[in-house]
């Protein structure tokens, strides 16, 4: 297994090739998932942002199908883990077994040793097993018996889950939720899409006919290109404002982490690149605020009693937060820049 450090991504792709490659992936997935362009693009954006994707919805709306379609569209190693209540951490990370021939322990890699890991029904496994994902998702490495094994690039966990109100589910720990870049909901297809689905899926599963349109090398190049997308200071400030707002919102017990800020900007870069821009707009952040932030935060008991979902709270924050005033500063102006949006310095909220 060729170990590759995370920073060794491919070279840059020119604008046209980037567009062609990304459009090809999206179009490929859309053969399976009809009428969900935005969701598909978001899933791709998470891949290009070097993040992990959590697809949460009720059963039967195509979560696993989206995950598998994305995996099959890219010609790379794909592993699938079915999270069941009796799954063990070693099933995920791998285990050292005693080799009779060599009289030595030998490492059997687990399911995470792949470019794309599809974790199905992730919240049906116990938190103990889910915790096995913590290291690999954030640090892209696995440590078993004191030996650390690097994972490959690209590495992406695509997990599906049912809402936690469903039977037989465990809630994901906050630490693990925070490692998922975005949580997307599939939603029911509209009637036209459902009709097309009936036509297309009636006889055969289109997933089987799906061909890979890209490979790991191209994805690495795509990732490298996304990293070059320009983010103006004003946009960074806006991202910070957004995250700070979640930390200060009275409805929230736990706000978004600095990791969330980082991933918000990365995803925004990817979305901007997918739209053919080489700069990030506040619009991207506004569109991504709910998918990227909503699953990390915990509402207060009052807000829960009032049946306010985190999605609603975050989108309300977005609609209330003014854009930072982002006139370009005079280079000779040595005054310190105005901090934040004029509010009191942030004081961490005790969860």
């Amino acid at each position, binding site marked *: 297994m060729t170990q590759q450090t995370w920073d060794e991504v491919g070279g840059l792709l020119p604008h046209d090739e980037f567009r062609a490659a990304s459009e090809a992936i999206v179009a490929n997935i859309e053969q399976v998932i009809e009428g969900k362009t935005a969701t598909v693009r978001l899933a791709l954006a998470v891949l290009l942002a070097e993040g992990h994707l959590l697809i949460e919805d009720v059963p039967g709306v195509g979560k696993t199908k989206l995950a598998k379609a994305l995996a099959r569209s890219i010609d790379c190693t794909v592993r699938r883990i079915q999270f069941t209540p009796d799954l063990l951490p070693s099933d995920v990370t791998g285990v050292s077994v005693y080799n009779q021939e060599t009289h030595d322990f030998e490492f059997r890699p687990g399911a995470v040793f792949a470019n794309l890991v599809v974790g199905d029904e992730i919240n049906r496994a116990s938190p103990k097993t889910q915790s096995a994902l913590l290291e690999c998702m954030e640090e892209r490495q696995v440590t078993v018996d004191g030996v650390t094994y690097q994972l490959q690039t690209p590495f992406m966990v695509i997990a599906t889950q049912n809402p936690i109100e469903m039977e037989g589910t465990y809630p994901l720990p906050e630490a693990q939720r925070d490692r998922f870049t975005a949580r997307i909901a599939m939603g029911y297809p509209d009637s036209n899409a459902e009709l097309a689905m009936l036509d297309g899926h009636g006889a055969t599963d289109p997933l089987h006919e799906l061909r890979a349109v890209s490979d790991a090398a191209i994805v690495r190049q795509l990732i490298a290109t996304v990293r070059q997308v*320009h983010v*103006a200071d*004003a*946009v960074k400030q806006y991202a910070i404002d957004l995250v700070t707002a979640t930390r200060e919102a009275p409805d929230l017990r736990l706000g978004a982490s600095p990791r969330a800020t980082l991933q918000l900007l990365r995803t925004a870069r990817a979305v901007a690149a997918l739209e053919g*821009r*080489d*700069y*990030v*707009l*506040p*619009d991207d952040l*506004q569109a991504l605020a709910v998918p990227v932030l909503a699953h990390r935060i915990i509402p207060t008991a009052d807000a829960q009693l009032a049946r306010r979902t985190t999605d609603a709270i975050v989108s309300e924050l*977005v*609609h*209330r*937060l*003014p*854009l930072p005033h*982002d*006139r*370009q500063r005079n280079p000779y102006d040595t005054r310190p820049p105005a901090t934040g949006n004029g509010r009191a310095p942030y004081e961490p909220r005790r969860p």
Partner: protein
Amino acid sequence: MISSRNIGMVAAAATLLAAAPLSAIFQGWTWLIESIIAVAVVAGVAALTRLARAPLWGQVLGMLAGLMLALTWLFPSGQELFAILPTPGTFAYFGDLLAGSMQDMRSYGVEVPDTDPLLFIAVLGVGAVAVLVDVLAVGLRRPALAGLPMLAIYSVPVAVYVDSVPAVPFVVGAAGYLWLLVTDNVDRVRRFGRRFTGDGRDVDVWEASPLASAGRRLAAVGVALAVMLPLAVPGMTGGLLDSLSQGPGNGTGNGSGSGGTSGRIDLFASLAGQLNQSQVADLVKVKTSEQSPFYLRYAVADELRPTGFQARNPSGRSVNKDLPNPADRAGPGVQQATYQATVEVTKSLSMSLMPVYAEPTRADDLSDNWLYDANQQVVFSNRENSRGRKYSFDYVRSTFTQDALRAAKPLPTEHPVRRQMTATPGPVSEVEELVKGLIQGKRTDYDKVLAIYRHFSADNGFSYRLSTESGSSGQDIVNFLTNKVGYCQQYAAAMAWLVRSAGIPARVAFGFTNGSKRDGDTFTLTNLNLHAWTEVYFDGAGWVPFDATPAYGVPGSTRSAWAPDTDAPEAPSPNSSATSTPTDPGASTGPEGPDNSDRDTDDGLSLGGTTPNEQPPVWPWWAAGLVALLVLLAVPALRRMALRRRRSGRAASVAMASATVDGGSEPGARPVVVTADANRARADAHAAWAELLDTLVDFRVPVDPTETPRATADRLVRDALDDDDAIGSARLLGRAEERARYARDPLTGERLLPALRAVRAALATRADRRTRLLAAVLPPSVLLRWRTTMADRSSRMVALTGQARYRLLRWNPRRLLADRAAR
């Protein structure tokens, strides 16, 4: 229990503070000590009765009994049991004191001495107010009502002082009242239990209640209203004294004395103010049986201070009592005749003095409130004023021969009149030298006076002019003696000063000349006839008037035999008065007598030289005001136009600059140009976007600060625009701003100005007429920005004051006390 005791004590203290205005009435402070005793007794009894849980009526009875005991002890009649228990004899004595107080109130002017009757009524009043305040504030818990009895105390000096009442005692009383209110409300708020702020924080013990700031604000508004409202109401000014107090000198004695002088008028200042007025108002109509009367007097300034001559507070007894008869001064060479005069004061003259001829012997139609000062020979009142009064009186006119005056012996040095009326505030060397030169070789007092009197003649270069500076202090006298130009004020004061320097009693009298409007035996006197002259005291003859002012300057000027006009072409025979009959008492009218009296007023005016009679036309002011108003109204529109021009200038330059970039084919120079161009393009896009936002505000399209340029443009396209050109323009503007803000390279080469125009035109066609008009005349964007700036400033100021207040609060005594208590 503790709190009500606390309020009771505060009520007592507030009563005492509210009694502060009485200090303006009494000379001494005995009243205060006795009031403190009475109020303390009342408060103590109240506290005791409340301790015994007596009902309210019991408290009242107890307090009244306590007050009675205190009064009995303070004003003993000698018949009490154990010095404090009243007997019927005590009450009879109290009745006597009350009657006596009525008597004293009439006979004494302010400030009154400490007589027992007056002290009794003062202490009784303060004690009664203390009872009332205690009942209202503690018993009924209506401390606001307690202000009424407190105000009753304040009304006493208001009734006594006609013109103005000292402000400081009122402030003291008001502070006491506020203290009472604050104490009650603090107690009331504490009864709610724990105090807290809006953000859920507990309020420390030392902190003021959060409600207090609202209260303070209300109080400030109330005080401001109370001060401003009377200023806005017309008709409360216009009397003589009011207008005088705005005259050149301040009406309150230049602050040289303590509280006692505050009620006085600066007679000189009032005189100058009246003489300099451009409007002529009839002040007095006088009808007399005398053929050619001397001046009508109303006041005397006989106290010479470093600041000049000032009026002493007159004192005397009622005019309706027997007035001193000057007949006892009759002697050889002194002729006396009795005349009758009727004076009618118009509404324009309002003062506490009443003009009379010297010296009145009997007065009719005047109430007991009018008193006569035999020494100053003036009629005055501490309660009423002269406005609109009509009265008649008998008076004795004394005329003297020069020989009779010459025969008068100099007063002995220890004579009270001489001691008082020759006092000068320190020797002024010029005056001393002048007087020494003038009286050299003169043996009698009269000759000395006459020499001084003659010094002020035209031969010596003295002339009359109204426009000199007023004043009668030592420095002003020297100036006048050097410049030799002045009017009656300086002549009278200077002569009196010189005569005093010669050791002869002298004072300055104020009154009216005979004026220029004579109809038979009726004289109509105006403010221009106000006059001042000198009076010199001769033993046996009394006060003898001398008018040193040049006769040509004074309409209706009158000269007497003993003081002939020094400027007359031919001096009258010194003995002419000896042969004159009583009906013609030696008073000869001046060279400009009643014949050419019509001209006199004009003369006086032209001599004054500063007061043209014609009113300037008013319309230029209206026109100027209208123009100013229009300019003011046009300011927002002009500001908007200037903004638009500046931004258009930027937007227009972008096309030019990008053209140069496109034209520049040399590759080496290009990067530099491009950076400059990028910055400029960015600025231009920002300018265009700012202009677009302002336009939106102007046309009342909502602007959301949370929206990105792209979202704003999309919303515009969706909601406000239907023209393809405008839609494209709006998107272009949004894209340009978006690129300028967030992209590496801004959009260049686009024509933003036409796009802006297109959007504006599209918005204008959609807007209704009123919105269009407002956008052109009073652009909401400019107004909004100004309003925001103002709000920002004020909030910043509030924040700063809040910080400062918090810092100050660290040294709040309440906090320090609370800390100490906690420790």
